């Protein structure tokens, strides 16, 4: 979870420009950042699909873990030594952090923005608070885990039914009840119940990340249905109306301005259509975990647009601006490796039809392996060599 989360942050190229960085105060927490690649084109679809789906699937495991150690919360005396006091504080960071990450993540993908602040800030810094406590807990508990695993054989546990289930012998862990009630479920039964919970969550969620026929199986996931049919009938992150796009903004008066060092050119939609057109099969993948299978995008290569303003050979980063008002992602900066990929387009058409307003008509960015919100829609200005 932690690694795929860090990858998602890197995928935004936050070190490239201020507009790309949702957590500009990160300091050394961004030490690992690198240029996000464009190949394979499904890279972000994979890493973020895993991040969100696995995060949801692991919820029963987290709940079962917390259930199994709850007696420790009420251990008496509450503090036995300085070491115990520090460890309890560390456990607050561990448990609070784990639940905080799950809750903010689960609420964010359902667009239920009731948490106190920007999701990016809370989820990213929350993860760092959690991971330190988690690492310490793992290191300190490895001997006990090894002892516990050695004390029994998995085969025996899996072959023991409820009638044969006996309590743990009383030990010094504080986890064994001194007066245990008779078992109402075997150990294998408890494991199976957690597994069934994971499986149920997987079954009603994963389809939104797999896409295609499987999307309909995501019965409870936010993007488990298609918004329509036809060439433009695939998933939308934010509709045109939702981000304040007016018909006049994307009507006949719409123009694309392309700027380079010392040069500028303004194009109408018809002029754009007369430029060489390229088709690329690329997915859309959202930070919320849903994604689509490849769509056939047709439009002008970003390298060709750079050439219009006199940049031949190796074009630099590009600052992309949308006509959208407000919202966090009205503008973005794409890195030079993204601009130079032959599949990176300013798309005018998708699956053989003009883009619909909700998919960014008249023109949108589509870059392989790019997080969805950086595939800017309703583009009106491209500034090569600028970072905001």
């Amino acid at each position, binding site marked *: 979870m932690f690694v795929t989360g860090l990858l998602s942050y890197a995928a935004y190229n936050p070190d490239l420009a201020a507009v790309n960085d949702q957590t500009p105060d990160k*300091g050394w927490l961004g030490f690992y950042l690198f240029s996000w690649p464009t190949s394979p084109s499904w890279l972000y679809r994979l890493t973020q699909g895993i991040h969100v789906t696995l995060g949801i699937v692991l919820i029963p495991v987290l709940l079962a873990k917390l259930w199994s150690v709850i007696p420790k919360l009420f251990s008496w005396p509450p503090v036995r030594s300085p070491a115990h006091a520090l460890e309890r504080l560390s456990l607050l960071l561990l448990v609070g952090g784990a639940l*905080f990450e799950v809750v903010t993540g689960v609420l964010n993908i359902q667009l239920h923005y009731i948490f106190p602040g920007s999701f990016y800030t*809370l989820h990213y810094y*929350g993860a760092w608070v959690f991971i330190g406590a988690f690492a310490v807990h793992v290191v300190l508990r490895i001997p006990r885990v090894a002892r516990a695993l050695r004390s029994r054989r998995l085969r025996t546990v899996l072959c023991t039914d409820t009638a044969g289930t006996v309590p743990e012998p009383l030990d010094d862990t504080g986890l064994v009840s001194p007066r245990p009630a008779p*078992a109402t479920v075997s150990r294998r039964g408890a494991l199976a119940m957690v597994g069934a919970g994971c499986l149920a969550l997987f079954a009603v969620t994963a389809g939104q990340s797999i896409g295609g026929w499987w999307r309909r199986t995501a*019965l409870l996931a936010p*993007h488990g*249905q298609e918004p329509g049919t036809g060439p433009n009938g695939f998933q939308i992150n934010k*509709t045109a109306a939702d981000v304040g796009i007016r018909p006049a903004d994307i009507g006949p008066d719409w123009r694309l301005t392309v700027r380079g060092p010392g040069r500028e050119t303004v194009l109408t939609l018809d002029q754009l259509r007369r430029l060489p057109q390229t088709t690329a099969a690329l997915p859309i993948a959202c930070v919320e975990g849903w994604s689509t299978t490849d769509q056939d995008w047709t439009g002008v290569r970003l390298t060709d647009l750079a050439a219009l303003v006199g940049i031949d050979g190796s074009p630099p980063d590009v600052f992309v601006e949308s006509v959208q008002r407000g919202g966090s992602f009205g503008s973005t900066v794409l890195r030079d490796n993204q601009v130079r990929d032959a599949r990176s387009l300013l798309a005018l058409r998708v699956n053989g039809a003009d883009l619909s307003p909700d998919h960014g008509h008249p023109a949108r960015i589509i870059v392989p392996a790019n997080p969805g919100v950086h595939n800017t829609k309703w583009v009106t200005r491209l500034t090569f060599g600028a970072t905001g």
Partner: protein
Amino acid sequence: MKHPAGFLARYGASPLHLLLVLCSFALALYAGIRLLKGDLLGVAIWFVGAALLHDLVLLPLYTLTDRAAQALTGGRPGGADDNRAHRVPPVNYLRVPAFLSLLLLAVWYPLILRRVPGYRPATALDPDRFLGHWLLLTAGFFALSAACLLAATARGRRKAERGRHAAKP
């Protein structure tokens, strides 16, 4: 090695324990300052509140509900009328589908209970389908559990009859 033993007695764990915990606290503080920068009180309440709400409200609540279910179903097999016909304690036929249903509700409640007014405007998707899906899934879980209970009861009865025939040749 008198010194480490003295440390152990005073501190309660090895020096390594202290170093690791302090290292993690420093990292947590570095990230925590940034986490709390915006809405200090709000974030602190959410962070600590998540743990407290789970440990002191959610967990006791589902434990008590489970106790009630055990009382309702007679808990564990072994009663006079039971005769080990049910190898699985009857409470589990209630427990498992209820757990699955409530788990799905707990994770997806904002959509199921229609708490997200911005869902349709943003995504152009139908917000009314989730409640129906959850109810049908819940019906499915309980139906499956009922089928398992029926099968187990039938199996138990056959076994009991065979046992009687064997006892009276």
